[in-house]
């Protein structure tokens, strides 16, 4: 082969190589061989997190530049952003560092700013806002979970009592019923008297019974009454049990009947209960507040909203894993 041809081939080959290197460079690093005119903005952050040189700068998700340099400047970290000069950045636009996925890949997001605001000149400093990164988010969620647990704990304490403060709501209700059983008893007696009168056909009800037109209505009413009667029977049974106890001198009623002194106590305690229930109604005390205080309700709602927002924020960055992590943190 003659030498000229060989030289030509080597030359061609070499040029091809240079061209391919250039193409590779252009494709892989978005070409900076011929330094294009760029706009430089400086963004100061407390923490650049995992931002690296060459990461994207995006406005509304559209790439408008890249991170040229990251550096420490005194007590803060600065990212030098190279922005396409054709894209004006509003002077009140805010830059944030955003994760584009759970496994790495950060970029700087710049919002649109307000319409009509003047655009930032070359070399100006852009306003920044810090966004929680995954780690701070996780620790916040952990704290939130603890708060929730605490408030749920005090709620159940209020209901069940913690043994020291003399019983929760349930116990108190129980006591209320058993303490007032004599009045219930009287009520029952009245009821018995009324039903006796009905049986005998006295009064309005007696007439009702004898009026065939109203039979059907009455029947329905009787069904209701029957169920009421069943309940009443139960009450009576209770009352009978209580009466037995009273007769044998047991229980608070027994002492009430046979012991003058304890009868006084009982009166006092009933007065107490009344005071408690009054307080409840007026919204005093923890339980009362829980039931009546709109502020507490609001703050619970705020807490729940916060959790909600956190979840939203997380779902932006990776729905499945984020929920998983939140669930783990909570339970």
């Amino acid at each position, binding site marked *: 082969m003659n030498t000229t041809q*060989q*030289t030509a081939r080597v030359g061609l080959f*070499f040029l091809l*190589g240079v061209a*391919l290197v250039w193409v*590779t*460079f252009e494709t*892989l*690093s978005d070409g900076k061989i011929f330094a294009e005119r760029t706009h430089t903005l400086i963004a100061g952050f407390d923490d650049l997190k995992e931002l690296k040189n060459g990461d994207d700068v995006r406005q509304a998700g559209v790439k408008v530049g890249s991170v040229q340099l990251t550096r420490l400047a005194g007590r803060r970290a600065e990212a030098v952003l190279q922005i396409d000069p054709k894209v004006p950045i509003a002077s009140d636009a805010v830059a944030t560092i955003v994760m584009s996925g759970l496994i790495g890949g950060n970029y700087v997001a710049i919002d649109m700013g307000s319409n009509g605001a003047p655009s930032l000149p070359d070399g100006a400093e852009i306003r920044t806002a810090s966004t929680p990164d995954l780690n701070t988010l996780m620790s916040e969620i952990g704290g939130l979970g603890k708060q929730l647990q605490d408030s749920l704990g005090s709620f159940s304490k209020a209901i069940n009592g913690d043994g020291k403060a003399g019983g929760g709501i349930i116990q108190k209700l129980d006591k209320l019923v058993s303490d007032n059983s004599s009045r219930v008893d009287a009520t029952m007696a009245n009821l018995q008297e009324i039903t006796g009168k009905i049986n005998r056909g006295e009064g309005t009800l007696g007439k009702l019974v004898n009026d065939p037109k109203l039979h059907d209505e009455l029947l329905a009413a009787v069904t209701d009454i029957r169920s009421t009667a069943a309940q009443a029977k139960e009450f009576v049974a209770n009352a009978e049990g209580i009466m037995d106890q009273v007769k044998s001198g047991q229980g608070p009623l027994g002492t009430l009947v046979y012991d003058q002194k304890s009868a006084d106590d009982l009166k006092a305690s009933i007065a107490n209960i009344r005071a408690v229930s009054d307080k409840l109604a007026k919204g005093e005390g923890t339980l009362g507040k829980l039931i009546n205080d709109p502020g507490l309700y609001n703050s619970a709602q705020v807490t729940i909203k916060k959790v909600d927002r956190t979840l939203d924020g997380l779902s932006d960055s990776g729905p499945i894993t984020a929920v998983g992590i939140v669930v783990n943190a909570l339970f």
Partner: protein
Amino acid sequence: MKQINAILEGVGSVVQLLFRSLSYTGSLPRQGARFIEQCYMIGYTTLPIVAILSFFIGTVLALEAGYAMQDFGAKEFIGSLVGLSMARELGPMMTAVLLAGRVGSAITAELASMKVYQEIDALTTMNIPAAKILVLPRLAAVLVMMPVLIVIANIVGWFGGSVVARYVSYVGISPQAYFAALRHYTKFKDVMNGMEKAEVFGFVVVLVCCDIGLNTRGGPREIGAAVTRGVVVSLILILVLDYFVTKILL
């Protein structure tokens, strides 16, 4: 003991040859024709085999990656895997291995036969150093041609991967997605990294093969032995250097 001595002797001889050759660097502009000839041998004629091999390395990488990743839905990363491993490791390594087999053996054979048939002695009596006209143009040529070979190997390998990604049923990724992933994770720095590696490999292969050729002693039978030794030593050096160069460049 004898072996260690032989290795030390070899290292010393290679280093001496390197410095002797470099001392004639100034004469390179006047050796244009020889340089072009060596470029032709090292670059142009090696291209087809480098291209074929790289294409199939790319396809195999994509195939294996696709097979391994299909179970956990990371097929989108095939592009980045092929891109990075071609650029950083397999491109330079396989090209250097081919260079050892194709160019290294030819260099050793040529210089060994020149030595055996006293052509080297004739050069010495003419006061024309072998390092100047035989070794230096080859070293320069390999430095110039290696990046060209590497960039072609990379691109052909990436393309091979995209073909598999597109047409193999269980991979089935569009070339756009493949190249997007490739571009996202492969930086030009990685390609440069691979080229630097390849330059080291190519330079060492050529230098060692020259040295072994020039140190051949005895009759024509020794030419064959020298070629074998040249290729084997080159391959070992490529793999050993690969570790250290990678570590330095990381």
